[in-house]
């Protein structure tokens, strides 16, 4: 009788402790197997034969060009998506118009469509025999197998992030602050710069970081539209694959490491920015 009374209580207390450590172990081993081990292996394999081959691979002109192209594409795609994202979020939260729900679905499309399909669809439109591509080629503009198509593909796949981060922030702040600014004599432009933008800053920042990360890491769509011409249309991700297939493992690992370091810097800057906000 006594046992049956104290049993569940003891089990409950012991169970919660065991449960606590058990859950932690499961979560950590899962992360170790899926994330830490593979990424760690990249680090290990990169430096397996010392620093010299790594430095050599780093200063390889093809690697440097891939790095340059990756950064350049992101430098075009991210600001464009940020501008579009903020504008679109304002439109969706503050205006009522016909086709709003269609716009919302369209914005989420890049989340749903596989990047490879994005690449193929861009080829269908902008390729030499494509719908717009023929006309563009006649006018001397080359899109597919050149950087414009890679920028388009990157914009496509990283489109939703800013919108999706800014919309909830805009919904939360409402229109009171903007209306207060109006009654105090601010023009719409002054209101946007001095009131709306600072108020949604956290959402914009987070959206920009996610967009950048996605833009830098894009492989599927870019590899379809780029033609993978080393030294010309090869981004870092494409370069990694190309080196790997050439059995240049150190080259592949070094470029991977470069991507991983950029990603790490982005994640860290995000953490810093977030903690700053919590502090304020």
């Amino acid at each position, binding site marked *: 009788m006594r046992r049956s009374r104290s049993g569940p209580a003891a089990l409950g207390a012991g169970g919660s402790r065991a449960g606590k450590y058990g859950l932690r172990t499961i979560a950590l081993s899962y992360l170790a197997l899926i994330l830490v081990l593979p990424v760690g292996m990249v680090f290990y394999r990169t430096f397996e034969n010392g620093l010299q081959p790594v430095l050599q691979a780093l200063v390889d002109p093809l690697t440097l060009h891939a790095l340059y192209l990756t950064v350049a594409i992101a430098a075009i795609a991210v600001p464009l998506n940020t501008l579009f994202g903020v504008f679109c979020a304002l439109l969706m939260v503050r205006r009522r118009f016909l086709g709003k729900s269609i716009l919302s679905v369209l914005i989420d499309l890049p989340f749903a469509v596989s990047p490879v399909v994005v690449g193929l669809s861009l080829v269908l439109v902008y390729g030499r025999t494509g719908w717009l591509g023929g006309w563009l080629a006649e006018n001397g503009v080359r899109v597919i197998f050149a950087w414009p198509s890679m920028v388009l593909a990157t914009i496509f796949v990283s489109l939703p992030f800013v919108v999706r981060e800014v919309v909830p922030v805009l919904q939360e702040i409402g229109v*009171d*602050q903007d*209306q*207060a*600014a*109006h*009654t*105090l*004599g*601010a*023009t719409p432009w*002054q209101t946007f710069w*001095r*009131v709306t933008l*600072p*108020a949604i*800053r956290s959402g914009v920042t987070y959206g920009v970081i996610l967009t950048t990360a996605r833009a830098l890491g894009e492989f599927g769509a870019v590899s379809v539209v780029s033609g993978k011409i080393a030294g010309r249309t090869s981004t870092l991700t494409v370069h990694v694959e190309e080196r790997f297939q050439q059995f240049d493992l150190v080259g592949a690992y070094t470029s991977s490491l470069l991507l991983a370091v950029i990603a790490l810097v982005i994640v860290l800057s995000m953490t810093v920015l977030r903690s700053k906000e919590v502090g*304020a």
Partner: protein
Amino acid sequence: MTISAIGITKRFGDFVALDDVSLEVAGGELTALLGPSGSGKSTLLRVIAGLERADAGEVIISGEDATGRPARERGVGFVFQHYAAFKHMTVRENVAFGLSIRHRPKAEIAARVDELLHLVQIDGLAERYPSQLSGGQRQRMALARALAVEPKVLLLDEPFGALDARVRKELRAWLRRLHEEMHVTTVFVTHDQEEAMEVADRIVIMNEGRIEQIGPPRELYERPGNEFVMSFLGPVNKLGDVLVRPHDVELLLEPNGATTVALIDRITYLGFEVRVELELRNGRKLWAQTTRESAAPLEPGKTVHVRPRATRTFDGDGVETVPAGDSPWWDRRVTMEVHHS
């Protein structure tokens, strides 16, 4: 600095928020727009401010037609129920906003902000952020911000609605004093009749998108134009079509000819005020508001003799009428059921 709203109509879809409403506010006056939620009081205020565009009608602010003008050109100060503080700015920056977008000299802005912070009694909080202020302090800051641009009229939308009861009472009295110092034409919206009566020179009672009655607090209370006004400005007992204020229900221990017998259901002590819930012989219920001393001899379950000091009756159109016939006040409709004691 007067305000005229002429024939304002505003619809939201099928809902008519304002139905051909006209209102004149004299310069320097403190006016309350009082009504239940959905009565159109906030919408009227927002139409005057230019935050809402009316479907029909005109808004004239100190003689100038403001109907087509955006809010920023109307010279109105607006205070929101939920403060609408600029969260990323300090108190000083909040108050300075209207002046800094007008590119006034820095020294002038600083002096003006100090003066305003002193006026609203939050001198020491200039460098804080709104999140570090209490609700009452935030609303004082919002008021200072609105006053900074020297508005022609001050519009307050349920300014104390989000505050707790004690702070609300404090700020009411303070707003009244502030208005006496500054004499800015002020319109404020409230659903709290006590707040309106305490603060305003004049009350505009609204219901279902229309103005029911306009007048000084005392006049409205003593001479309500219709049943809605009477029941909105204070508690009423409704006996058939006769309306009696609970404080006008007199309780006597002995009958005197004009009284009727009632059973005491319940007695509630609220400090000085005592509520006595009663049931008449014909089954109708009413309550009386009385004092502690008068209620001392009363007990639930016992009977008491009831007489009204004053009653009011309105016909279907809301016009006050005099009860006809010989039937007694408490039961003009169901005389047959009355059992005189």
